[in-house]
């Protein structure tokens, strides 16, 4: 029987749109290790590093208006990894 090959990609998939575009640009700018894949209806923000951190203060600054965790979760369609939701950020980790 096959063994399962480990996959350590950490990702967040956001519903396609203006807000997702802004967040993708920000994450690419802040983190060299991030890859963005545009699938039309959704975009995927991926890394092979341990975690992805979406900081609402940083997003608010580029968004041009207040942006909360709740706003972010409204466009987060799915993720790969283990998620932790805090007051000011959302963290997705390779290990739970």
């Amino acid at each position, binding site marked *: *029987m*096959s*063994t*399962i*090959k*480990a*996959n*350590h*990609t950490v990702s967040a*998939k956001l*519903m396609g749109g203006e807000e997702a575009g802004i967040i993708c640009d920000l994450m690419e700018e802040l983190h060299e290790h991030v890859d963005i894949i545009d*699938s*039309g*209806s*959704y975009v995927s923000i991926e890394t092979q590093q341990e975690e992805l951190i979406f900081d609402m203060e940083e997003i608010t600054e580029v968004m041009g208006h207040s942006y909360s965790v*709740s*706003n972010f*979760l*409204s*466009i*987060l*369609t*799915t*993720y*790969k*990894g*283990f*998620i*932790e*939701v*805090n*007051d000011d950020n959302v963290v997705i980790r*390779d*290990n*739970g």
Partner: protein
Amino acid sequence: MKISEAYDRVKAIDWEPSYITPEQKTVETTKFHIHNTKPNDPFKTFVREYCEQELEKDDRHYALLEAAARLNTGEPDARWVEGMKFGLSNLVGVEYAAARAMGRMARTVAPVELRQGYMMQMLDEMRHSNLEMNVIRHHMRSWKDPVGFDVAAKAGASSVGSSIFRSMVEDLITSDPVETAIGLQVFVETAYTNLFFVGLSSHASAHGDDMLASTLLTIQSDEARHMANGWSTLSSLLQDDRNLPMIQKAMDKWSWRIHCSFGLGNMLFGDYFVRKRTESAKEMTMRWVFDDFYGGFYQKLEKFGIKPPPHLDEMITDLDWMSHSAAIYIFGAWPTFFHRYDGLNDDDFEWFEKKYPGFYKHFGGFWEAYGKCTDPEEGKLILKEMGGLPNFCQVCQRPTIFPRPDISQQRAFKLKDQTFIFCSDGCQEIFLEEPHHYVGFKNFYDLYEGKELSEIIQELGFVRADGKTLMAQPELEPKRLWTLDDVRKANYIVERPQPPAFR
């Protein structure tokens, strides 16, 4: 106050009532040991925040629905939209059943964090059922042939294809309530709905069905919380070693069960209801399910002693033929469904041969014959030319033609004085664990053996308003629509096939 602090304070408000015992408080029992565990809820969602968030999601999505109703956004691709008549018919009932499952789970487990997560999930599933019904209604109002969308909810209860999803979800909602968490939240929602709702949304969008794309994506945004519910439940169970053998059994069962149902749906829709392709359904399933879910989530459970599913190799090799076998079944049985079909063209043949070498050798004959059985004037039914329908598996309700009709794994089995048929080792093993769970399901032959096909179509209600024209048609734009009279002339009487060899 920080969210984690507020969360701990709210949890501390939970109490043990003095007027009933703890056992009386949990309405249903579970075989798992979960009452004294310390779960973690990564979302830490309060009702107030939950309602705000869901309101924002609904405001965004229903604004799109409103706009789509007003604006001329162009006609989506017919192969896709017609296929979605069948696709969406299965989802509404599944979501509603998932809501019921969450209600059961919320009144079974003691830890308040898990109960909170399940109750919000219950609301989510009702939301999903409504979202799906709303997109069905949108299509009913905007699509050039709305017939078929109007019977979607009823068809989900009665069509020969829907029994695959119905049997899966009925198994889920009648299993041990905590086992339901493993089946639903781990396998359905962490593995397969990612592919179904996110992966297929890009197909929807590519085919001009932006409303369905938005529906699927907003549904999956709730599933993100359900995935976390599943992990919270699983990590709670793993705190007690006594749960390990039961967890393993549940993982073994549901890995196979969901592969045969949601996995099959993903494969069929991703290969046969699309015209614009960038990857095959097999490639999508490998990426989303076997690389992401098994590689990224399941593999991490090995440190707790969880072993890979026993049929993992078979699940992967199944992908070579699964969509094609499913397609010849659903296309072959076209009169018993409620949508228009789009047979394969040369571009499809070329794509399939490239992505699934050997496709034409094993399936080309069917498609050549299908092309000759579309004209009602000729009066030839592909179902009759094929020699009728195959047997159905008592557990998964799939036709017993998988992975491919010439190498199917079907077998018969005798229990007391009854003969049961299974499609595979996986389903037979599931049956033998709890036969009482599966013996009652009535299949197509139990209901319709001996009847003539036009009678069955009328009984199913899949006839247009004129009382004689079939809802289903074997082509998107036929010269003339098939009627009950055309089917009657073909004189196809349903006969139960001989059982396969016993094992």
